[in-house]
């Protein structure tokens, strides 16, 4: 099965990612012991004691194995600052980031697919030019700017959506959606532009394919050609890029969660970076990188369902 064939490479990537996370956070300057103790309590003896306790004096491979072994059992250690278990802190905040991120992707796709298709269908016309220049322009608008303007419009001027804060889904689904909407939109705008442009290009190429001509001479309606014949073969790079762009969304969530005061993973990362809470940084970075890798792996698998040429073992011209 395709999934099984891809599994070794997934495991290898995960290993590499965990190793990189570990090295990055272990080799860079900054002594965790010093952090835990605080400057005033940091006598040399105390530092040595804490370092021994944390195993910081062991050789690197030993430290990596200990760390990853614990991580695999769900133990990422405790925050140097708050003593909160890192794993718990992450699990608490993950749903917020995931909800906003997924919502953003859904919004972006919901807009980009029809708009991109329309643009391709009407390629060269005024409609297309308007869509193309708008999306080109949107690429130059950073998400924090989008957020500011969305707040200005929807919270300050119209007062219909909250500018900050988060309501859990389990507490109040409607309020939850309202609190997620502006953050998700802020993340979605740039994605929308990316997807639209990508789909347009691919769709234009597809519409020039012989099989589209063949469909026309079969008497198939344009609408059906667009949706049933052309969309799927045009969506391969869209899928791949959507997976890759999850990275941008995760990065963006740091900004957006800060701006909208959402209790998500991005905010957690930022806070721990600012407070130099190293174990927390390490844990969050690992979780983010692993999620990112897994998302892209999943996209790869989905891709093989979309394109039978891959799952049937032939190499297809991948973009």
């Amino acid at each position, binding site marked *: 099965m395709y999934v099984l064939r891809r599994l070794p490479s997934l495991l290898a990537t995960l290993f590499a990612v965990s190793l990189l996370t570990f090295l990055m956070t272990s080799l860079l300057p900054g002594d965790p012991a010093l952090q835990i103790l605080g400057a005033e309590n940091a006598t040399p003896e105390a530092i040595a004691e804490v370092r021994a306790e944390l195993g910081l004096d062991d050789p690197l491979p030993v430290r990596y194995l200990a760390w990853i072994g614990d991580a695999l059992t769900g133990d990422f250690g405790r925050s140097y600052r708050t003593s909160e278990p890192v794993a718990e802190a992450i699990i608490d905040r993950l749903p917020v980031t995931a909800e906003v991120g997924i919502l953003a992707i859904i919004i972006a796709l919901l807009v980009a697919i029809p708009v991109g298709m329309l643009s391709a269908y009407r390629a*060269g*016309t005024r409609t297309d030019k308007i869509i193309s220049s708008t999306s080109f322009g949107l690429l130059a608008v950073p998400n924090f700017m989008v957020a500011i303007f969305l707040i200005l419009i929807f919270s300050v001027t119209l007062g219909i959506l909250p500018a900050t804060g988060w309501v859990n889904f389990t507490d109040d689904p409607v309020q939850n959606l309202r609190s997620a909407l502006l953050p998700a939109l802020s993340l979605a705008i740039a994605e929308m532009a990316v997807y639209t442009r990508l789909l347009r290009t691919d769709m234009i190429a597809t519409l020039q*394919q*012989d*099989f589209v*001509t*063949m*469909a*026309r*001479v*079969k*008497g*198939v*309606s*344009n609408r059906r050609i667009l949706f049933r*014949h052309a969309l*799927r*073969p045009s969506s391969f790079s869209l899928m791949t890029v959507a997976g890759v762009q999850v990275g941008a969304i995760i990065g963006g969530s740091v900004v957006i969660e800060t701006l909208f005061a959402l209790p998500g993973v991005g905010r957690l990362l930022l806070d721990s970076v600012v407070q130099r809470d190293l174990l927390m940084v390490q844990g969050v970075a690992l979780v983010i990188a692993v999620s990112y890798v897994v998302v892209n792996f999943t996209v790869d698998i989905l891709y093989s369902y*979309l*394109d*039978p*040429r891959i799952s*049937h073992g*032939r190499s*297809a011209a991948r973009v």
Partner: protein
Amino acid sequence: MSTARPLDGRVDEPLLEVDDLRTYFDTPRGVVKAVDGVSLRVDRGKTLGIVGESGSGKTVLSRSIMNLLPKNNTIREGSVRFEGRELTTMKNKEMRTIWGAELAMILQDPMTSLNPVTKIGEQITESLGIHLGEKGKTARAHAVELLKSVGIPAAERRLGEYPHQLSGGMRQRVTIAIALACGPKLLVADEPTTALDVTVQRQILDLLESQQHQRNMGLIIITHDLGVVAGRADEIAVMYAGRIVERAPTKELFARNRHPYTEGLLRSIPRLHQPSHTRLQAIPGRPPELIDPPAGCRFAPRCNYAQDKCLTETPLLAPHAAGHEAACHFPVGTTAGQEALERNLAAGRTAAGTPLDSTLIATAGAA
């Protein structure tokens, strides 16, 4: 005109009648006159071969006849009547009732003319659903029958396969099955065998021929290779630079070709009785630009017969025998032509300034 009931063909009309069809593209470099005054006729059960070098406008002609070209940068004049119905003025909506149902097409590359991500079965049953209202089991059974009729073994299983799982020849059989699905009255095959192996080419052509006979269907085979239509077409039209330069029943054309371009094409077909080392003669030079083509005869720069008159006066199609027309001032096999050739041989160059090839002198002497 029969515009009152545009969707009903009339049996007393010819199957396809193309009259002075022009198809130009407005491009940034100028107007490309890809099809420039073509008239054709295809009857029920007959095969028309359209032959010409690549770039001569064959594909554009076929798309123009089929009404498939984009509207925005295309200029189209003349008329295309399909069983008396004028196609050039039809909207896509009307065309859709004709496409697939009465008028079908197959393309050069079966690799690209099937949707790579859709199962074969679905691609066949789609038009069955649209035109015949067949669904589910009925459509499936019909599809199996179609696949069998085009010589695909294990037809049942193929329905669930994707195009990439089939060989090129099999794929072209599938596209034929799709084209034939709703029993079209006319099938346009644009270079149906160009992308295939030589052995497979023959099988596909045989298949087209037998299906045509069974269905009494009109067939247009477009090719750059006269050999492909040699034994199969009832009539052949030779196309050069957007125009038909010679048209004749197949036998007549091979026996008494009149146009120097046709002569060139004939020389480039491999013949069985020739020793295998005989070099095929391709026509030297390239087809002219279709943007602002030169005045006079468009073939003149490459023509061994070209005289001054050819550079100024455009030759029109003129009858030579029953059903045989050629557009040439100095037709091959006539005294005028023979004299023209001799004049050029004596001068060592044609009126267009093209030097004459010495091997040609030998051939001409032998003729």
